Protein backbone atom coordinates (compact mmCIF):
# COMPACT_ATOMS: atom_id res chain seq x y z
CA UNK A 1 0.00 0.00 0.00
CA UNK A 2 1.41 3.28 -0.99
CA UNK A 3 1.60 6.03 1.56
CA UNK A 4 -0.68 8.78 0.40
CA UNK A 5 0.58 12.27 0.53
CA UNK A 6 -1.78 14.44 2.47
CA UNK A 7 -2.49 17.13 -0.04
CA UNK A 8 -5.68 18.35 -1.60
CA UNK A 9 -4.09 19.29 -4.87
CA UNK A 10 -1.21 17.57 -6.61
CA UNK A 11 0.33 20.92 -7.34
CA UNK A 12 1.88 22.65 -4.41
CA UNK A 13 3.64 25.94 -4.04
CA UNK A 14 5.92 27.41 -1.47
CA UNK A 15 3.91 30.62 -1.60
CA UNK A 16 0.19 31.21 -1.42
CA UNK A 17 -2.25 29.67 -3.82
CA UNK A 18 -1.33 30.84 -7.27
CA UNK A 19 -4.65 30.03 -8.82
CA UNK A 20 -7.30 31.72 -6.80
CA UNK A 21 -5.73 35.14 -6.44
CA UNK A 22 -4.58 35.06 -10.02
CA UNK A 23 -8.05 34.18 -11.24
CA UNK A 24 -9.52 37.04 -9.32
CA UNK A 25 -6.96 39.43 -10.70
CA UNK A 26 -7.64 38.14 -14.19
CA UNK A 27 -11.29 38.86 -13.78
CA UNK A 28 -10.70 42.32 -12.46
CA UNK A 29 -8.05 43.44 -14.84
CA UNK A 30 -8.02 41.04 -17.75
CA UNK A 31 -4.27 41.19 -17.63
CA UNK A 32 -1.99 38.20 -17.90
CA UNK A 33 0.55 37.61 -15.19
CA UNK A 34 4.17 37.85 -16.11
CA UNK A 35 6.54 34.96 -15.91
CA UNK A 36 9.80 35.97 -14.31
CA UNK A 37 8.77 39.60 -14.49
CA UNK A 38 11.17 40.27 -17.34
CA UNK A 39 10.61 43.89 -16.82
CA UNK A 40 11.54 44.38 -13.21
CA UNK A 41 8.13 45.44 -12.22
CA UNK A 42 7.22 45.64 -8.59
CA UNK A 43 3.98 46.72 -7.06
CA UNK A 44 0.89 44.59 -7.40
CA UNK A 45 2.72 41.94 -9.34
CA UNK A 46 5.77 41.92 -7.09
CA UNK A 47 4.85 38.79 -5.17
CA UNK A 48 4.29 36.81 -8.29
CA UNK A 49 7.77 36.99 -9.64
CA UNK A 50 9.15 33.55 -10.06
CA UNK A 51 5.85 31.83 -10.74
CA UNK A 52 4.47 30.34 -13.87
CA UNK A 53 1.13 28.71 -14.54
CA UNK A 54 0.84 25.03 -15.15
CA UNK A 55 -1.84 22.54 -16.07
CA UNK A 56 -1.88 18.92 -15.05
CA UNK A 57 -3.78 16.35 -17.08
CA UNK A 58 -4.29 12.65 -16.79
CA UNK A 59 -5.06 10.16 -19.48
CA UNK A 60 -5.23 6.39 -19.42
CA UNK A 61 -1.52 5.79 -19.86
CA UNK A 62 0.21 8.95 -18.80
CA UNK A 63 0.28 12.21 -16.93
CA UNK A 64 0.84 15.38 -18.87
CA UNK A 65 2.12 18.61 -17.40
CA UNK A 66 2.01 21.83 -19.41
CA UNK A 67 3.84 24.86 -18.10
CA UNK A 68 3.94 28.31 -19.66
CA UNK A 69 7.53 29.47 -19.69
CA UNK A 70 7.91 32.08 -22.39
CA UNK A 71 11.29 33.33 -23.53
CA UNK A 72 13.60 30.62 -22.28
CA UNK A 73 16.18 28.65 -24.16
CA UNK A 74 15.70 24.91 -24.19
CA UNK A 75 18.96 24.35 -22.40
CA UNK A 76 17.95 26.64 -19.55
CA UNK A 77 14.92 24.61 -18.58
CA UNK A 78 15.45 21.68 -16.28
CA UNK A 79 12.94 18.90 -15.74
CA UNK A 80 13.56 16.47 -12.90
CA UNK A 81 11.57 13.61 -11.47
CA UNK A 82 12.45 12.18 -8.10
CA UNK A 83 10.31 9.83 -6.08
CA UNK A 84 6.99 10.80 -7.65
CA UNK A 85 7.66 14.54 -7.68
CA UNK A 86 8.22 16.45 -10.86
CA UNK A 87 10.22 19.66 -10.60
CA UNK A 88 10.43 22.21 -13.39
CA UNK A 89 13.12 24.87 -13.14
CA UNK A 90 13.77 27.72 -15.52
CA UNK A 91 16.89 29.83 -15.45
CA UNK A 92 17.36 33.12 -17.17
CA UNK A 93 20.28 35.45 -17.41
CA UNK A 94 19.77 38.84 -18.99
CA UNK A 95 22.38 41.39 -19.75
CA UNK A 96 21.33 44.90 -20.16
CA UNK A 97 23.53 47.63 -21.51
CA UNK A 98 22.54 51.10 -20.56
CA UNK A 99 21.96 53.26 -23.54
CA UNK A 100 24.95 55.54 -23.14
CA UNK A 101 28.18 56.28 -24.93
CA UNK A 102 30.62 53.37 -25.20
CA UNK A 103 32.88 54.45 -22.38
CA UNK A 104 30.10 55.04 -19.91
CA UNK A 105 27.87 52.11 -20.82
CA UNK A 106 27.14 49.88 -17.89
CA UNK A 107 26.22 46.27 -18.23
CA UNK A 108 23.74 44.96 -15.71
CA UNK A 109 23.47 41.23 -15.43
CA UNK A 110 20.42 39.71 -13.87
CA UNK A 111 19.93 36.10 -13.05
CA UNK A 112 16.57 34.67 -12.19
CA UNK A 113 15.27 31.27 -11.45
CA UNK A 114 11.73 29.94 -11.32
CA UNK A 115 10.81 26.57 -9.99
CA UNK A 116 7.67 24.59 -9.26
CA UNK A 117 7.00 21.06 -8.15
CA UNK A 118 4.14 18.71 -8.83
CA UNK A 119 3.35 15.59 -6.83
CA UNK A 120 2.46 12.72 -9.11
CA UNK A 121 0.22 10.19 -7.45
CA UNK A 122 1.08 7.03 -9.33
CA UNK A 123 4.04 4.96 -10.38
CA UNK A 124 5.79 6.16 -13.47
CA UNK A 125 8.06 4.76 -16.12
CA UNK A 126 10.93 7.04 -15.26
CA UNK A 127 12.94 6.16 -18.33
CA UNK A 128 10.11 6.97 -20.71
CA UNK A 129 9.46 10.55 -19.65
CA UNK A 130 9.48 13.07 -22.48
CA UNK A 131 9.58 16.83 -22.49
CA UNK A 132 9.07 19.26 -25.34
CA UNK A 133 9.33 23.05 -25.43
CA UNK A 134 7.39 24.85 -28.12
CA UNK A 135 5.93 28.35 -28.39
CA UNK A 136 7.08 29.04 -24.87
CA UNK A 137 5.12 26.10 -23.44
CA UNK A 138 6.85 23.14 -21.83
CA UNK A 139 4.96 19.85 -22.14
CA UNK A 140 6.12 16.92 -20.02
CA UNK A 141 4.61 13.52 -20.70
CA UNK A 142 5.02 10.98 -17.92
CA UNK A 143 3.88 7.47 -18.81
CA UNK A 144 2.37 5.41 -16.03
CA UNK A 145 3.67 2.04 -15.04
CA UNK A 146 1.25 -0.82 -15.39
CA UNK A 147 -0.52 -1.47 -12.17
CA UNK A 148 1.22 -3.88 -9.96
CA UNK A 149 -0.97 -6.89 -9.52
CA UNK A 150 -1.79 -7.80 -5.95
CA UNK A 151 0.32 -10.68 -4.78
CA UNK A 152 -0.94 -13.34 -2.52
CA UNK A 153 1.24 -13.83 0.46
CA UNK A 154 0.83 -16.96 2.39
CA UNK A 155 0.96 -16.41 6.10
CA UNK A 156 1.82 -19.19 8.31
CA UNK A 157 0.10 -19.21 11.58
CA UNK A 158 2.20 -20.84 14.14
Amino acid at each position, binding site marked *: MKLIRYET*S*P*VYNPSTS*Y*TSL*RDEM*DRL*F*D*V*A*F*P*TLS*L*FQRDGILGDWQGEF*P*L*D*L*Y*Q*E*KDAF*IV*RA*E*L*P*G*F*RKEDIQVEVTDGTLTITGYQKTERKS*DQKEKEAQTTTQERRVSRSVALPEHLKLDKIQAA*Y*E*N*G*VLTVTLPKREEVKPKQIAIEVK
Partner: protein
Amino acid sequence: MNDLLTPKESRVSAPAVPRRTLTPCYDVKETSEAFILTAQVPGVDRSSLELTVDALKLTVLGRRVFTAPAEWRALHREIPQADYRLSLELDHRFNPEAVRAELSQGVLTLTLPKAEAVKPRRIDIKG
Protein backbone atom coordinates in the same frame (compact mmCIF):
# COMPACT_ATOMS: atom_id res chain seq x y z
CA MET B 1 -4.38 50.64 -20.48
CA ASN B 2 -7.17 51.34 -22.96
CA ASP B 3 -8.61 47.92 -22.32
CA LEU B 4 -8.94 48.50 -18.61
CA LEU B 5 -11.48 51.23 -19.19
CA THR B 6 -13.73 49.07 -21.30
CA PRO B 7 -13.56 45.62 -19.75
CA LYS B 8 -16.88 44.58 -21.21
CA GLU B 9 -15.64 45.03 -24.73
CA SER B 10 -13.30 42.14 -24.57
CA ARG B 11 -16.01 39.82 -23.30
CA VAL B 12 -18.55 40.47 -26.00
CA SER B 13 -18.47 37.57 -28.40
CA ALA B 14 -17.88 38.49 -31.95
CA PRO B 15 -17.80 35.86 -34.66
CA ALA B 16 -14.08 36.15 -35.15
CA VAL B 17 -13.02 36.11 -31.48
CA PRO B 18 -14.99 33.50 -29.56
CA ARG B 19 -12.93 33.43 -26.36
CA ARG B 20 -12.35 36.11 -23.85
CA THR B 21 -9.11 37.98 -24.18
CA LEU B 22 -6.38 38.99 -21.83
CA THR B 23 -3.86 41.73 -22.21
CA PRO B 24 -0.44 40.10 -22.32
CA CYS B 25 2.34 41.27 -20.10
CA TYR B 26 4.34 43.74 -22.16
CA ASP B 27 6.98 46.36 -21.94
CA VAL B 28 8.17 49.13 -24.21
CA LYS B 29 11.72 50.37 -24.47
CA GLU B 30 12.89 53.38 -26.39
CA THR B 31 16.10 53.74 -28.33
CA SER B 32 17.13 56.61 -30.52
CA GLU B 33 15.95 54.72 -33.59
CA ALA B 34 12.85 52.90 -32.51
CA PHE B 35 10.46 51.73 -29.86
CA ILE B 36 10.77 48.10 -28.94
CA LEU B 37 7.78 46.32 -27.54
CA THR B 38 8.21 42.95 -25.88
CA ALA B 39 5.15 40.91 -25.00
CA GLN B 40 4.82 37.50 -23.37
CA VAL B 41 2.42 35.38 -25.37
CA PRO B 42 3.14 31.73 -24.55
CA GLY B 43 1.10 29.23 -26.47
CA VAL B 44 0.85 31.39 -29.56
CA ASP B 45 2.58 30.42 -32.76
CA ARG B 46 3.12 32.29 -36.01
CA SER B 47 -0.06 31.03 -37.60
CA SER B 48 -2.29 32.26 -34.80
CA LEU B 49 -0.74 35.68 -34.41
CA GLU B 50 -2.44 38.64 -36.07
CA LEU B 51 -0.81 41.99 -36.19
CA THR B 52 -2.61 45.04 -37.50
CA VAL B 53 -0.99 48.42 -37.79
CA ASP B 54 -2.38 51.61 -39.15
CA ALA B 55 -1.53 55.22 -38.59
CA LEU B 56 -3.50 55.40 -35.35
CA LYS B 57 -3.50 51.98 -33.78
CA LEU B 58 -1.48 48.86 -33.29
CA THR B 59 -3.41 45.68 -32.49
CA VAL B 60 -1.91 42.35 -31.63
CA LEU B 61 -4.19 39.34 -31.45
CA GLY B 62 -2.74 36.01 -30.48
CA ARG B 63 -4.63 32.78 -30.10
CA ARG B 64 -3.42 29.96 -27.97
CA VAL B 65 -3.20 27.06 -30.37
CA PHE B 66 -3.47 24.21 -27.93
CA THR B 67 -6.69 22.30 -27.20
CA ALA B 68 -6.55 19.35 -24.87
CA PRO B 69 -7.60 16.07 -26.50
CA ALA B 70 -10.93 14.66 -25.34
CA GLU B 71 -9.36 11.74 -23.48
CA TRP B 72 -7.27 13.99 -21.26
CA ARG B 73 -8.78 14.68 -17.86
CA ALA B 74 -7.72 17.97 -16.30
CA LEU B 75 -6.52 17.53 -12.73
CA HIS B 76 -5.31 21.04 -12.19
CA ARG B 77 -5.63 24.08 -14.39
CA GLU B 78 -3.93 27.44 -14.12
CA ILE B 79 -3.25 28.38 -17.71
CA PRO B 80 -5.90 30.94 -18.63
CA GLN B 81 -8.45 29.87 -21.18
CA ALA B 82 -8.13 33.12 -23.03
CA ASP B 83 -6.42 34.59 -26.03
CA TYR B 84 -4.20 37.63 -26.05
CA ARG B 85 -5.17 41.03 -27.24
CA LEU B 86 -3.05 44.13 -27.07
CA SER B 87 -4.17 47.40 -28.47
CA LEU B 88 -2.03 50.50 -28.43
CA GLU B 89 -2.58 53.93 -29.83
CA LEU B 90 0.08 55.26 -32.12
CA ASP B 91 0.82 58.81 -33.04
CA HIS B 92 3.01 60.80 -35.36
CA ARG B 93 6.17 59.47 -33.75
CA PHE B 94 5.83 56.12 -35.44
CA ASN B 95 6.40 54.95 -38.93
CA PRO B 96 3.71 52.28 -39.43
CA GLU B 97 5.21 51.05 -42.68
CA ALA B 98 8.37 49.79 -41.11
CA VAL B 99 7.14 47.70 -38.18
CA ARG B 100 9.05 44.48 -37.67
CA ALA B 101 7.84 41.53 -35.64
CA GLU B 102 9.60 38.49 -34.24
CA LEU B 103 8.07 35.62 -32.31
CA SER B 104 10.29 33.25 -30.40
CA GLN B 105 9.26 30.76 -27.71
CA GLY B 106 6.20 32.72 -26.76
CA VAL B 107 7.84 36.14 -26.69
CA LEU B 108 6.78 38.66 -29.29
CA THR B 109 9.20 41.46 -30.09
CA LEU B 110 7.90 44.34 -32.14
CA THR B 111 10.25 46.97 -33.44
CA LEU B 112 8.50 50.22 -34.25
CA PRO B 113 10.91 52.55 -35.96
CA LYS B 114 10.51 56.16 -35.20
CA ALA B 115 9.46 58.50 -37.95
CA GLU B 116 12.38 60.49 -39.32
CA ALA B 117 11.13 63.74 -37.95
CA VAL B 118 11.36 62.55 -34.35
CA LYS B 119 14.80 61.01 -34.39
CA PRO B 120 17.24 63.01 -32.37
CA ARG B 121 19.30 65.13 -34.67
CA ARG B 122 22.57 66.71 -33.82
CA ILE B 123 22.78 70.35 -34.57
CA ASP B 124 26.17 71.78 -35.28
CA ILE B 125 27.03 74.96 -33.59
CA LYS B 126 28.70 77.41 -35.82
CA GLY B 127 30.79 80.29 -34.63
